[in-house]
Protein backbone atom coordinates (compact mmCIF):
# COMPACT_ATOMS: atom_id res chain seq x y z
CA UNK A 1 0.00 0.00 0.00
CA UNK A 2 2.77 2.36 0.95
CA UNK A 3 4.57 1.64 -2.32
CA UNK A 4 1.38 2.36 -4.24
CA UNK A 5 0.91 5.71 -2.56
CA UNK A 6 4.61 6.47 -2.90
CA UNK A 7 4.56 5.98 -6.66
CA UNK A 8 1.27 7.66 -7.48
CA UNK A 9 0.45 10.33 -4.92
CA UNK A 10 1.40 13.11 -7.29
CA UNK A 11 -0.80 11.80 -10.08
CA UNK A 12 -3.75 11.44 -7.72
CA UNK A 13 -3.20 14.88 -6.19
CA UNK A 14 -2.90 16.53 -9.60
CA UNK A 15 -6.00 14.67 -10.75
CA UNK A 16 -8.00 16.09 -7.87
CA UNK A 17 -6.67 19.63 -8.31
CA UNK A 18 -7.24 19.66 -12.07
CA UNK A 19 -10.72 18.21 -11.68
CA UNK A 20 -11.56 21.02 -9.28
CA UNK A 21 -10.10 23.55 -11.70
CA UNK A 22 -12.19 22.21 -14.57
CA UNK A 23 -15.33 22.13 -12.44
CA UNK A 24 -14.77 25.75 -11.44
CA UNK A 25 -14.18 26.83 -15.04
CA UNK A 26 -17.26 25.00 -16.23
CA UNK A 27 -19.45 26.46 -13.51
CA UNK A 28 -18.17 29.93 -14.20
CA UNK A 29 -18.59 29.82 -17.96
CA UNK A 30 -21.59 27.58 -18.49
CA UNK A 31 -24.14 30.39 -18.37
CA UNK A 32 -22.29 32.33 -21.02
CA UNK A 33 -21.97 29.29 -23.26
CA UNK A 34 -25.68 28.53 -22.96
CA UNK A 35 -26.47 32.16 -23.76
CA UNK A 36 -24.32 31.94 -26.88
CA UNK A 37 -26.18 28.86 -28.03
CA UNK A 38 -29.55 30.49 -27.44
CA UNK A 39 -28.45 33.56 -29.38
CA UNK A 40 -27.33 31.41 -32.30
CA UNK A 41 -30.71 29.67 -32.22
CA UNK A 42 -32.63 32.94 -32.15
CA UNK A 43 -30.61 34.32 -35.03
CA UNK A 44 -31.33 31.21 -37.06
CA UNK A 45 -35.05 31.39 -36.28
CA UNK A 46 -35.16 35.01 -37.39
CA UNK A 47 -33.57 34.00 -40.67
CA UNK A 48 -35.91 31.14 -41.49
CA UNK A 49 -39.23 32.50 -40.21
CA UNK A 50 -39.87 35.99 -41.57
CA UNK A 51 -41.73 38.38 -39.31
CA UNK A 52 -41.06 36.64 -36.03
CA UNK A 53 -40.72 38.80 -32.93
CA UNK A 54 -41.10 36.36 -30.08
CA UNK A 55 -41.21 32.64 -29.75
CA UNK A 56 -42.67 30.23 -27.27
CA UNK A 57 -41.63 26.67 -26.90
CA UNK A 58 -44.32 24.02 -27.12
CA UNK A 59 -44.30 20.49 -25.85
CA UNK A 60 -44.79 17.77 -28.39
CA UNK A 61 -45.35 14.09 -27.86
CA UNK A 62 -43.12 12.44 -30.40
CA UNK A 63 -39.75 14.06 -30.72
CA UNK A 64 -37.36 13.46 -33.53
CA UNK A 65 -34.22 11.38 -33.58
CA UNK A 66 -32.14 13.48 -31.23
CA UNK A 67 -33.12 14.91 -27.86
CA UNK A 68 -32.20 18.34 -29.08
CA UNK A 69 -35.56 18.59 -30.77
CA UNK A 70 -37.39 21.75 -29.78
CA UNK A 71 -40.44 23.22 -31.41
CA UNK A 72 -41.26 26.90 -31.21
CA UNK A 73 -44.39 28.83 -32.04
CA UNK A 74 -43.28 32.01 -33.78
CA UNK A 75 -45.34 35.09 -33.03
CA UNK A 76 -45.16 38.61 -34.32
CA UNK A 77 -45.30 41.77 -32.22
CA UNK A 78 -49.07 41.45 -31.76
CA UNK A 79 -48.93 37.85 -30.70
CA UNK A 80 -50.23 36.44 -33.97
CA UNK A 81 -48.87 33.19 -35.25
CA UNK A 82 -46.51 33.75 -38.16
CA UNK A 83 -44.87 30.35 -38.40
CA UNK A 84 -43.12 27.57 -36.62
CA UNK A 85 -39.46 26.91 -35.97
CA UNK A 86 -38.18 23.44 -35.29
CA UNK A 87 -34.72 22.80 -33.97
CA UNK A 88 -33.78 19.29 -34.97
CA UNK A 89 -30.62 17.26 -34.94
CA UNK A 90 -29.42 14.12 -36.59
CA UNK A 91 -26.24 12.28 -37.50
CA UNK A 92 -24.03 13.94 -40.09
CA UNK A 93 -21.07 12.72 -42.05
CA UNK A 94 -18.57 13.68 -39.37
CA UNK A 95 -20.59 14.45 -36.26
CA UNK A 96 -24.10 15.55 -35.33
CA UNK A 97 -25.82 18.23 -37.40
CA UNK A 98 -28.22 20.60 -35.68
CA UNK A 99 -30.48 22.77 -37.79
CA UNK A 100 -33.49 25.03 -37.55
CA UNK A 101 -36.34 24.47 -39.98
CA UNK A 102 -38.96 27.15 -40.50
CA UNK A 103 -42.53 26.19 -41.34
CA UNK A 104 -45.33 28.38 -42.57
CA UNK A 105 -48.34 29.14 -40.39
CA UNK A 106 -50.37 26.23 -41.72
CA UNK A 107 -47.32 24.03 -41.69
CA UNK A 108 -47.76 23.22 -45.33
CA UNK A 109 -44.60 24.90 -46.56
CA UNK A 110 -41.01 25.17 -45.43
CA UNK A 111 -39.90 28.76 -45.09
CA UNK A 112 -36.27 27.80 -44.96
CA UNK A 113 -33.64 25.80 -43.17
CA UNK A 114 -30.44 26.85 -41.46
CA UNK A 115 -27.85 24.50 -39.99
CA UNK A 116 -26.62 25.98 -36.72
CA UNK A 117 -24.13 23.40 -35.58
CA UNK A 118 -22.15 21.00 -37.68
CA UNK A 119 -18.61 19.84 -38.37
CA UNK A 120 -18.97 18.81 -41.99
CA UNK A 121 -16.02 18.84 -44.37
CA UNK A 122 -14.87 22.36 -45.16
CA UNK A 123 -15.30 23.27 -48.81
CA UNK A 124 -17.52 20.28 -49.48
CA UNK A 125 -19.99 19.10 -46.87
CA UNK A 126 -20.08 22.46 -45.16
CA UNK A 127 -21.92 23.87 -48.15
CA UNK A 128 -25.05 22.82 -46.28
CA UNK A 129 -24.55 26.09 -44.46
CA UNK A 130 -26.20 29.33 -45.47
CA UNK A 131 -23.10 31.33 -46.36
CA UNK A 132 -23.94 33.21 -49.52
CA UNK A 133 -25.79 32.65 -52.74
CA UNK A 134 -23.10 30.26 -53.88
CA UNK A 135 -24.43 27.74 -51.37
CA UNK A 136 -27.63 26.76 -53.12
CA UNK A 137 -28.22 23.67 -51.02
CA UNK A 138 -29.98 25.12 -47.95
CA UNK A 139 -31.69 27.85 -49.94
CA UNK A 140 -33.51 25.40 -52.18
CA UNK A 141 -35.65 24.20 -49.27
CA UNK A 142 -37.37 27.57 -48.91
CA UNK A 143 -40.92 27.51 -50.23
CA UNK A 144 -41.08 23.76 -50.67
CA UNK A 145 -44.21 21.86 -49.76
CA UNK A 146 -44.13 19.61 -46.71
CA UNK A 147 -46.66 17.16 -48.11
CA UNK A 148 -44.19 14.41 -48.94
CA UNK A 149 -40.68 13.52 -47.76
CA UNK A 150 -37.87 14.81 -49.95
CA UNK A 151 -35.68 12.78 -52.24
CA UNK A 152 -32.11 13.45 -53.18
CA UNK A 153 -31.02 13.92 -56.78
CA UNK A 154 -27.68 14.67 -58.39
CA UNK A 155 -29.24 16.50 -61.28
CA UNK A 156 -30.00 20.16 -61.24
CA UNK A 157 -33.42 20.15 -59.58
CA UNK A 158 -32.84 23.02 -57.17
CA UNK A 159 -35.37 25.25 -58.92
CA UNK A 160 -38.08 22.58 -59.08
CA UNK A 161 -40.09 24.32 -56.38
CA UNK A 162 -43.22 22.23 -56.79
CA UNK A 163 -41.58 18.86 -56.34
CA UNK A 164 -39.99 17.02 -53.49
CA UNK A 165 -36.68 16.76 -55.32
CA UNK A 166 -33.63 18.07 -53.57
CA UNK A 167 -30.38 18.66 -55.40
CA UNK A 168 -27.31 17.31 -53.65
CA UNK A 169 -24.17 19.38 -53.24
CA UNK A 170 -22.35 16.75 -55.26
CA UNK A 171 -23.22 13.14 -55.95
CA UNK A 172 -20.64 12.12 -53.37
CA UNK A 173 -21.57 14.24 -50.37
CA UNK A 174 -23.30 12.37 -47.60
CA UNK A 175 -23.91 15.67 -45.86
CA UNK A 176 -26.65 16.49 -48.36
CA UNK A 177 -28.32 13.18 -47.54
CA UNK A 178 -28.08 13.63 -43.78
CA UNK A 179 -29.52 17.14 -43.77
CA UNK A 180 -32.38 15.98 -45.97
CA UNK A 181 -33.10 13.14 -43.56
CA UNK A 182 -33.33 15.55 -40.65
CA UNK A 183 -35.75 17.73 -42.63
CA UNK A 184 -37.81 14.68 -43.61
CA UNK A 185 -37.98 13.69 -39.97
CA UNK A 186 -39.32 17.13 -39.15
CA UNK A 187 -42.02 17.08 -41.80
CA UNK A 188 -43.17 13.53 -41.16
CA UNK A 189 -43.00 13.23 -37.39
CA UNK A 190 -43.28 16.76 -36.05
CA UNK A 191 -45.39 18.69 -38.54
CA UNK A 192 -48.57 16.63 -37.96
CA UNK A 193 -48.44 17.52 -34.27
CA UNK A 194 -48.41 21.26 -34.86
CA UNK A 195 -52.10 21.55 -35.67
CA UNK A 196 -53.23 20.98 -32.10
CA UNK A 197 -51.04 23.80 -30.84
CA UNK A 198 -52.40 26.41 -33.19
Amino acid at each position, binding site marked *: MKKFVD*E*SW*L*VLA*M*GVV*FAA*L*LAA*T*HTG*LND*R*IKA*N*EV*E*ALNQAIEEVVPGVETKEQIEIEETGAGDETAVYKCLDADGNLVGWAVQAAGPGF*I*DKITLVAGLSREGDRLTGIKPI*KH*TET*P*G*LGNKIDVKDE*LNFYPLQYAGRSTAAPFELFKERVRDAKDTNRIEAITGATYSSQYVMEIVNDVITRIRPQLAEHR
Partner: protein
Amino acid sequence: MADEDNGSNLQQFKEGVLSNNPVLVQLLGMCPTLAVTNSVENALVMGAAATFVVVMSNLITSALRNLIKPHVRILIFTLTIATFVTIADLTLKAFMYKVSLQLGAFIPLIIVNCMIICRAEVVAIKNGVGRSLADAFGIGIGFTLALLILGVVREWLGSGTITFPFADPISVMPAAFTANGHNWIIMILPPGAFLTLGVVVGISNQIRARREKGGAA
Protein backbone atom coordinates in the same frame (compact mmCIF):
# COMPACT_ATOMS: atom_id res chain seq x y z
CA MET B 1 20.58 18.37 -11.63
CA ALA B 2 21.98 21.61 -12.98
CA ASP B 3 20.09 23.52 -15.66
CA GLU B 4 21.25 22.89 -19.20
CA ASP B 5 23.35 25.94 -19.53
CA ASN B 6 23.80 26.04 -23.28
CA GLY B 7 22.71 29.58 -23.96
CA SER B 8 20.38 31.99 -22.24
CA ASN B 9 16.63 32.05 -21.86
CA LEU B 10 16.45 34.62 -24.62
CA GLN B 11 18.27 32.27 -26.94
CA GLN B 12 15.85 29.46 -26.04
CA PHE B 13 12.98 31.79 -26.85
CA LYS B 14 14.41 32.85 -30.20
CA GLU B 15 15.09 29.27 -31.17
CA GLY B 16 11.45 28.38 -30.63
CA VAL B 17 10.35 31.17 -32.92
CA LEU B 18 12.87 30.80 -35.74
CA SER B 19 15.63 28.22 -35.94
CA ASN B 20 13.60 25.52 -34.17
CA ASN B 21 10.15 26.60 -35.35
CA PRO B 22 7.76 23.74 -34.55
CA VAL B 23 5.93 23.86 -37.87
CA LEU B 24 8.52 25.00 -40.39
CA VAL B 25 11.62 23.32 -39.00
CA GLN B 26 10.54 20.51 -36.70
CA LEU B 27 7.48 19.77 -38.87
CA LEU B 28 5.33 19.07 -35.81
CA GLY B 29 1.68 20.00 -35.33
CA MET B 30 0.97 19.63 -39.04
CA CYS B 31 -2.65 18.64 -38.51
CA PRO B 32 -3.94 21.92 -37.07
CA THR B 33 -1.59 23.81 -39.38
CA LEU B 34 -3.24 22.39 -42.44
CA ALA B 35 -6.75 22.34 -41.07
CA VAL B 36 -7.33 25.72 -39.48
CA THR B 37 -5.30 28.09 -41.61
CA ASN B 38 -8.16 28.68 -44.03
CA SER B 39 -8.59 32.10 -42.45
CA VAL B 40 -6.38 34.46 -40.46
CA GLU B 41 -8.93 34.53 -37.64
CA ASN B 42 -8.87 30.77 -37.22
CA ALA B 43 -5.07 30.69 -37.45
CA LEU B 44 -4.55 33.35 -34.78
CA VAL B 45 -7.07 31.87 -32.34
CA MET B 46 -5.59 28.38 -32.73
CA GLY B 47 -2.11 29.82 -32.22
CA ALA B 48 -3.22 31.65 -29.09
CA ALA B 49 -4.94 28.57 -27.66
CA ALA B 50 -1.92 26.36 -28.33
CA THR B 51 0.42 28.96 -26.81
CA PHE B 52 -1.70 29.11 -23.67
CA VAL B 53 -1.59 25.32 -23.33
CA VAL B 54 2.17 24.94 -23.92
CA VAL B 55 2.95 27.78 -21.48
CA MET B 56 0.80 26.30 -18.70
CA SER B 57 2.06 22.80 -19.43
CA ASN B 58 5.72 23.86 -19.29
CA LEU B 59 5.12 25.97 -16.20
CA ILE B 60 3.53 23.17 -14.20
CA THR B 61 5.87 20.46 -15.44
CA SER B 62 8.89 22.57 -14.64
CA ALA B 63 7.63 23.60 -11.21
CA LEU B 64 6.99 19.97 -10.26
CA ARG B 65 9.95 18.48 -12.11
CA ASN B 66 11.67 17.19 -8.98
CA LEU B 67 8.54 15.38 -7.84
CA ILE B 68 7.63 13.69 -11.13
CA LYS B 69 8.78 10.10 -11.21
CA PRO B 70 10.05 8.97 -14.62
CA HIS B 71 7.56 6.18 -15.17
CA VAL B 72 4.50 8.40 -14.64
CA ARG B 73 5.79 11.46 -16.48
CA ILE B 74 3.90 10.90 -19.74
CA LEU B 75 0.72 10.38 -17.75
CA ILE B 76 1.28 13.63 -15.89
CA PHE B 77 2.10 15.55 -19.08
CA THR B 78 -1.09 14.30 -20.73
CA LEU B 79 -3.18 15.06 -17.65
CA THR B 80 -1.88 18.62 -17.53
CA ILE B 81 -2.25 19.26 -21.26
CA ALA B 82 -5.77 17.81 -21.38
CA THR B 83 -6.88 19.97 -18.47
CA PHE B 84 -5.65 23.21 -19.99
CA VAL B 85 -6.96 22.40 -23.45
CA THR B 86 -10.39 21.86 -21.90
CA ILE B 87 -10.14 25.19 -20.12
CA ALA B 88 -9.18 26.85 -23.40
CA ASP B 89 -12.08 25.12 -25.18
CA LEU B 90 -14.63 26.29 -22.61
CA THR B 91 -13.21 29.81 -22.68
CA LEU B 92 -13.48 29.96 -26.46
CA LYS B 93 -17.03 28.64 -26.42
CA ALA B 94 -17.92 31.33 -23.91
CA PHE B 95 -16.17 34.34 -25.41
CA MET B 96 -15.64 33.55 -29.09
CA TYR B 97 -18.53 31.24 -29.92
CA LYS B 98 -18.46 31.70 -33.68
CA VAL B 99 -14.74 30.98 -33.94
CA SER B 100 -15.04 27.97 -31.66
CA LEU B 101 -17.65 26.53 -34.05
CA GLN B 102 -15.31 27.21 -36.97
CA LEU B 103 -12.40 25.50 -35.28
CA GLY B 104 -14.67 22.65 -34.26
CA ALA B 105 -12.88 19.52 -33.20
CA PHE B 106 -9.40 21.00 -33.65
CA ILE B 107 -9.34 22.73 -30.30
CA PRO B 108 -9.72 19.49 -28.31
CA LEU B 109 -7.16 17.99 -30.72
CA ILE B 110 -4.53 20.36 -29.32
CA ILE B 111 -4.16 17.70 -26.64
CA VAL B 112 -2.45 15.42 -29.14
CA ASN B 113 -0.36 18.13 -30.75
CA CYS B 114 3.13 16.63 -30.62
CA MET B 115 4.94 19.87 -30.10
CA ILE B 116 3.38 20.50 -26.70
CA ILE B 117 4.22 17.18 -25.11
CA CYS B 118 7.60 17.38 -26.82
CA ARG B 119 8.48 20.60 -24.99
CA ALA B 120 7.48 19.04 -21.67
CA GLU B 121 9.66 16.01 -22.31
CA VAL B 122 12.67 17.80 -23.77
CA VAL B 123 12.81 21.08 -21.85
CA ALA B 124 10.38 21.46 -18.96
CA ILE B 125 11.19 18.26 -17.12
CA LYS B 126 14.90 19.14 -17.02
CA ASN B 127 15.00 22.92 -16.63
CA GLY B 128 13.92 25.63 -14.26
CA VAL B 129 10.75 27.63 -14.64
CA GLY B 130 12.46 30.58 -16.35
CA ARG B 131 13.99 28.52 -19.11
CA SER B 132 10.83 26.46 -19.58
CA LEU B 133 8.66 29.54 -19.90
CA ALA B 134 11.03 31.13 -22.40
CA ASP B 135 10.88 27.93 -24.42
CA ALA B 136 7.10 27.71 -24.20
CA PHE B 137 6.57 31.29 -25.33
CA GLY B 138 9.08 30.82 -28.13
CA ILE B 139 7.42 27.66 -29.40
CA GLY B 140 3.96 29.14 -29.03
CA ILE B 141 4.84 32.33 -30.88
CA GLY B 142 6.70 30.34 -33.53
CA PHE B 143 3.64 28.15 -34.04
CA THR B 144 1.35 31.17 -34.25
CA LEU B 145 3.70 32.88 -36.69
CA ALA B 146 3.79 29.86 -39.01
CA LEU B 147 0.02 29.55 -38.87
CA LEU B 148 -0.36 33.27 -39.51
CA ILE B 149 1.79 33.12 -42.66
CA LEU B 150 -0.26 30.25 -44.01
CA GLY B 151 -3.51 31.85 -42.95
CA VAL B 152 -2.74 35.12 -44.72
CA VAL B 153 -1.79 33.40 -47.97
CA ARG B 154 -4.72 31.00 -47.97
CA GLU B 155 -7.40 33.50 -47.04
CA TRP B 156 -6.05 36.19 -49.36
CA LEU B 157 -6.06 33.95 -52.41
CA GLY B 158 -8.92 31.69 -51.40
CA SER B 159 -11.51 34.17 -50.18
CA GLY B 160 -10.10 37.56 -51.14
CA THR B 161 -10.34 38.73 -47.53
CA ILE B 162 -8.36 38.94 -44.31
CA THR B 163 -10.33 38.38 -41.13
CA PHE B 164 -8.97 39.33 -37.72
CA PRO B 165 -10.57 38.00 -34.53
CA PHE B 166 -13.44 40.15 -33.21
CA ALA B 167 -13.62 42.04 -36.51
CA ASP B 168 -15.40 41.76 -39.82
CA PRO B 169 -13.62 40.40 -42.89
CA ILE B 170 -11.51 42.98 -44.68
CA SER B 171 -11.66 42.78 -48.43
CA VAL B 172 -8.16 42.80 -49.90
CA MET B 173 -8.90 41.94 -53.47
CA PRO B 174 -10.95 43.91 -56.00
CA ALA B 175 -14.63 43.03 -56.02
CA ALA B 176 -14.35 41.22 -59.34
CA PHE B 177 -12.10 38.63 -57.74
CA THR B 178 -14.79 37.06 -55.60
CA ALA B 179 -17.91 38.23 -57.41
CA ASN B 180 -17.17 36.21 -60.51
CA GLY B 181 -15.86 33.25 -58.58
CA HIS B 182 -12.27 33.88 -59.59
CA ASN B 183 -11.07 33.39 -56.07
CA TRP B 184 -8.84 30.33 -55.73
CA ILE B 185 -11.19 28.11 -53.79
CA ILE B 186 -8.55 25.41 -53.79
CA MET B 187 -6.61 27.52 -51.31
CA ILE B 188 -9.32 27.04 -48.68
CA LEU B 189 -9.46 23.33 -49.34
CA PRO B 190 -6.92 20.75 -48.14
CA PRO B 191 -4.85 20.67 -51.36
CA GLY B 192 -4.25 24.40 -51.03
CA ALA B 193 -3.10 23.87 -47.46
CA PHE B 194 -0.53 21.30 -48.53
CA LEU B 195 0.66 23.42 -51.45
CA THR B 196 1.05 26.55 -49.33
CA LEU B 197 2.80 24.68 -46.55
CA GLY B 198 5.19 23.05 -49.01
CA VAL B 199 6.14 26.38 -50.53
CA VAL B 200 6.56 28.11 -47.16
CA VAL B 201 8.69 25.27 -45.74
CA GLY B 202 10.75 25.33 -48.91
CA ILE B 203 11.37 29.06 -48.62
CA SER B 204 12.18 28.74 -44.93
CA ASN B 205 14.68 25.96 -45.68
CA GLN B 206 16.32 28.14 -48.32
CA ILE B 207 16.67 31.01 -45.88
CA ARG B 208 18.16 28.77 -43.23
CA ALA B 209 20.59 27.16 -45.66
CA ARG B 210 21.77 30.57 -46.87
CA ARG B 211 22.21 31.72 -43.27
CA GLU B 212 24.31 28.71 -42.41
CA LYS B 213 26.44 29.11 -45.50
CA GLY B 214 26.91 32.78 -44.71
CA GLY B 215 27.90 31.94 -41.13
CA ALA B 216 30.39 29.24 -42.07
CA ALA B 217 32.13 31.26 -44.76
